[in-house]
């Protein structure tokens, strides 16, 4: 997956851009339920076609979408081969189609929704839970951190791979995983300190 696209809002004037973040988030949730609950390869294929139309409507661009989905496509290719071997091509199409349909719509959502708007929507939606101890600001912040940490983790993975390669250790899982885990945790601690310094989470 590309670090340039995931979680990045791209300004625009499409109807998708204009739908407020709250209702749009509810639509994405409903879409996810629909994709998961409908069975069969025909339904998965139809969902994928609809998802691609939504992506085109959001003006995501085929090249950038493919670039963003590169990692997922490789993983899905492996999963598909396994599914065809174990359970037949119908199941493979159903699984792959469902996952891609969810991914593409999630991509369209993040590309057309400013995170600031998303945070406000989450904060507003969680207000009723405040009396039972839920802190909407913190949940919203955690949500945005998940979105923003993806590109950072991918960057760390890329750098770790390059460092292992430079030392001739590109085939060593230990040389890849240990530094990746350590740097990811260190990065999370630094981000925590930075949020603390900015007074976020104080309220």
């Amino acid at each position: 997956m590309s670090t340039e696209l995931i979680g990045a809002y791209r300004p625009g004037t499409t109807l998708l851009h204009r739908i407020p973040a709250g209702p749009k988030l509810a639509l994405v949730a409903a879409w996810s339920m629909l994709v998961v609950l409908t069975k069969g390869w025909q339904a998965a294929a139809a969902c994928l076609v609809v998802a691609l139309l939504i992506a085109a409507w959001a003006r995501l661009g085929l090249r950038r979408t493919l670039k963003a989905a590169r990692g997922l496509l490789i993983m899905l290719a492996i999963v598909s081969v396994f599914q065809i071997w174990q359970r037949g091509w119908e199941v493979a199409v159903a699984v792959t189609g469902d996952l891609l349909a969810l991914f593409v719509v999630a991509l369209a959502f993040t590309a057309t929704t400013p995170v600031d708007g998303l945070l406000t929507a989450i904060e507003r939606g969680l207000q009723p839970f405040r009396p039972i101890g839920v802190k909407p600001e913190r949940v919203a912040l955690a949500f945005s951190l998940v979105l923003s940490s993806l590109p950072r983790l991918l960057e760390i993975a890329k750098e770790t791979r390059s460092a292992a390669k430079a030392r001739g250790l590109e085939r060593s899982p230990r040389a890849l995983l240990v530094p990746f885990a350590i740097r990811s945790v260190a990065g999370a601690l630094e981000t925590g300190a930075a949020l603390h310094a900015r007074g976020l989470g104080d309220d």
Partner: protein
Amino acid sequence: MIEFRAASVVVDTPQGPLTVLEPTTLTLTEQRIGIIGANGSGKSTLARLINGLADVTDGQVLVDGVDVAEDGRAVRRRVGFVFSQPDAQLVMPTVAEDVTLSLRRTIRDKAERRRQAEKVLERIGLADRADVSVHALSGGQKQLLALAGVLATDPAVVVADEPTTLLDLRNTAEVANQLFAMPQQLVLVTHDLDLAQRCDRVLVVNDAAVVFDGPAANAIAHYRALVTS
């Protein structure tokens, strides 16, 4: 005004207690304060105490009379902090969104937050990058954005912990010019002696203690003597 009243920091290690900062008493009223010293000497700890990122073991640190240990939240509203690694500080996907995040506590209206963010980005020279992904920025631009996120809340003091360490000459000059042009009081931890030279007062930290406190030229001479002795 920043006050250290016999502030000390001791941390527990497997080898036993380790003093990170000896009891330190200082009153910092100058507009530009530099902190220089070798790696691991305690200068970052000294800076982090001002914002509550590190806690004193004994003594007190006060900002405008407010004890950091007693009301860290109030102090953090007055003290902004810039790290050497901007990637850790930038938590939102786009430039403008990262600045508006700082404003969420104080401005409820979304459009007003965006307007304020644009004003700060204009001031810092990043207005044309407002809707760009933070990952598409250069190192210098990321550091300027981190500074913009801090300045958006209009703090009285900005503490910058080696903000130019990862930058090339041109970006160092750009970030430094922004830091020294701010109306806020600046506490600058740095290895760059040219930047330290521009400060009104410089503290030299060595082996967990402030060993010199005075005008920049004298402090730099003291530091040079220290590292070459």
